[in-house]
């Protein structure tokens, strides 16, 4: 069956890279959700992962390094009916884009954020990323990384993100289900996905990820923040799955005066000059 989201053709990724796996998982998720192709908008920053939107057959906004989240919120503000998905790298999202990450979680627009977490800067050829492990050596971190890696899940949970999950390319089926739930979730949904960079990360390989992960129990209940935090902190073998869901949050675009009465996209509206005249009259 043809996947309408698939834009066939070459990619700029290295053979064997985990990015291909994520692409397949996402393509399947999109198809199974039966999303309307014209209503899906993809965003990314800059990096190897951030090239992903180029390879889907959808509208996209491939912006600046680290800056995918603000335009995503801008898009939801202008047209809440669009299905907005971000796919970007760990450096892009948690490094250069860290401030937007914190505040987008607080803002809680209804978007899905998929992070290709390869624990390295791929495109710029192998410097440490915020998720690189302590001791990881690179041409810049010549004696190994000494800064504590970010735990994106714990961070998101601490900010009361409305949906926090982790997947891995190594588990395509389960990761696909997570992504589907993330897209269906109303609010900011984070899916951090482990992905091996075969060119620049010789430590955190496909094999390493397999050995260092496992799925949360089937009966795990993602409603409690403290439990979610505790599980997110596990380090030796890192859990996968949906860690935390908070359904009680209001959504950014719903709170805007522009959309309180209805969700008509801004481009469909026309400005009523009579109202401007009223405002001017009030200046008397």
């Amino acid at each position, binding site marked *: 069956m043809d996947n309408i989201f698939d834009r066939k053709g070459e990619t700029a990724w290295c053979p064997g890279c985990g990015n291909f796996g994520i692409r397949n998982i996402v393509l399947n998720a999109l198809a199974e959700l039966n999303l309307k192709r014209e*209503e899906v908008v993809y965003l990314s920053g800059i990096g190897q992962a951030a090239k992903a939107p180029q390879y889907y057959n959808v*509208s996209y906004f491939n912006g600046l390094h680290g800056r995918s989240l603000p335009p995503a919120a801008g898009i939801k503000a202008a047209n809440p009916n669009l299905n907005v998905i971000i796919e970007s790298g760990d450096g892009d999202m948690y490094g250069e884009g860290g401030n937007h990450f914190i505040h987008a979680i607080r803002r809680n627009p209804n978007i899905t954020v998929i992070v290709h977490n390869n624990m390295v800067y791929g495109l710029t050829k192998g410097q440490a990323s915020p998720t690189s492990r302590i001791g990881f050596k690179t041409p810049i971190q010549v004696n190994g990384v000494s800064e504590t890696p970010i735990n994106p899940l714990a961070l998101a949970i601490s900010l009361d993100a409305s949906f926090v999950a982790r997947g891995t390319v190594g588990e395509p089926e389960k990761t696909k289900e997570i992504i589907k739930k993330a897209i269906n979730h109303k609010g900011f949904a984070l899916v951090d996905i482990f992905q091996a960079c075969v060119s620049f990360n010789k430590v955190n390989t496909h094999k390493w990820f397999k050995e260092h992960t496992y799925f949360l129990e089937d009966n795990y209940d993602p409603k409690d923040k403290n439990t979610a935090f505790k599980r997110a902190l596990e380090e030796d073998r890192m859990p996968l799955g949906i860690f935390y869901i908070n359904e009680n949050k209001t959504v950014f675009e719903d709170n805007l005066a522009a959309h309180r009465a209805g969700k008509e996209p801004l481009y469909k509206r026309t400005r009523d000059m009579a109202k401007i005249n009223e405002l001017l009259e009030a200046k008397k």
Partner: protein
Amino acid sequence: MAKRGLKQKSRVKKETVPANELIIVLAGEAGQGIQSIESILVKAIKNDGFNVFATKEYMSRVRGGVNSTEIRISSARVRSHTDRIDLLIPLNDESIVHLTKRIGPATVIIGDSTQVHDNKLMNIPFQRIASEFGNPIYSNSVAIGTICGILAVSEEKLYADIRAKFISKGEEVASKNIDAAKSGYAIGRELYKNKIIKFGITKDPSIKDEILLNGSEAVALGALAGGCDSVFAYPMTPGTGVFTALAGYSDKMGLVVEQVEDEIGVMNMALGAWYAGGRALVSTSGGGFALMTEGLSLAGAIESPIVVHLAQRPGPATGLPTRTEQGDLNLALYAGHGFFPRIILSPGDVKEAFFLTQKAFNLADKYQVPVFIMTDQYFTDSYYNLPQIKTDGLAAEKYIIETNETYKRYALTKDGISPRGVPGFGTGTVCVDSDEHDEEGRITEDLDGVRLAMADKRMKKFNLVKKDVIKPVLTGPGKYKTLIVSWGSNYNTVIEAMKISGKKDIAFLHFPQVYPLPKETAAYLKKAKKLILIENNQTGQFGDLIKLETGIDIKNRVLKYNGMPFSVEEITKAIS
């Protein structure tokens, strides 16, 4: 090359008080209530048929220090700042020190001698009178009443205004304030009758029907008239006024109003909104705009419209946060890496600010380029009465098209403009990319083909933009010997100074659009024997632009960069 920054030397010496005008300055600490005195007063004065202008200068603090408000009342239209003070109402001693240079022999100083100590002070016991009504806090109302009494402003409306202002605090507070104002009014009448304060201003009843508008409100309302439906900002003086004004209108107009985490987010969020079909404004000042530089370049690359309200204040860095300067022109001209077209507008008065901002949205959308509205603290915070603004014929022009399966966001067209679709409207995909891209918006490494085509396309658009430039505005005789050249907020001050100078061979060329520079510029400049450039910055940035674009080097640069706007007196002197 450039003249040293104008410095006010000493107490104003010679002065001829035109009887048809009264310049009142109120000064005191932040938190002493000068702002609210001003707002009630100016409205009451205007509603009584006087021409009125008000501007303020203040320190970067919430309490303490010295702030002052200048209120000019006149038979003729008044729209600019003067050094001269006819009537000074200081609320503390520091105010007098602060304003020393502006106090002349004819300045009348009235105040409460328990608060203020000066040989020239005429004591009006504001506090004691207020206390008679139960609380010294009412002294501001006494002062309001006094001024209105001097001017013989209609009492009825004044008290109604005071009631409206205070009624939320209860009937007692409201009526006490009114009583306090009444006492003040009587005093004011006395002062006038005793010729302590002399003037002879004629009223014009039609002024009642005019509006009062400051620069921030003019930009905000102009934006709305231009179809602005969303505003993204991070608070920064003096850009915050426009943000606050739009937030105030958000419920009525159904706007998107979002305070973003930082200015980088502001710019990128606004670009997202435009991408999906919104018409977004960002409002900031120099330091905040500096952070938007990369995002501006993104707008250039993806050919997104964006309207930036850049309200200037003195730098470098944090500089003087609440002061004024025209120091960010170079920043607006050259911000962003790589080449892309842009438009820079610089309103000279509030009416022009309304219409230019309205137009900014149409220009941005039509040419898919960034458009700047350059104002400054002096401009955003000053206001005056003007005839009602007519919106007839104005429209938020629509340029968005419905896409189909073959849609290409960057289709190469003859004029360089590719019809702009938005996601969700039609069956096409709308793909924008910060990397160099092909017609579809996909990353390219085709250097000789696609890269050059796209670079040339952006240049073509620029050539188009250059053909659609707002003409400079000449005031004065068509046959001039001396031509004054200036931009932005100096407009009204120069106009008034020209009138005062009385010279018949001086004209003034004001630039509502500074970039691309109107092509008529060189011809105007060449006609003059003498050129005078007036800019509120340290080096003459607009003069440099003119030199670059026309080859004409205006050596005579009147520059000011102490954080204050030009006064009428300064410009009068500079052009005489």
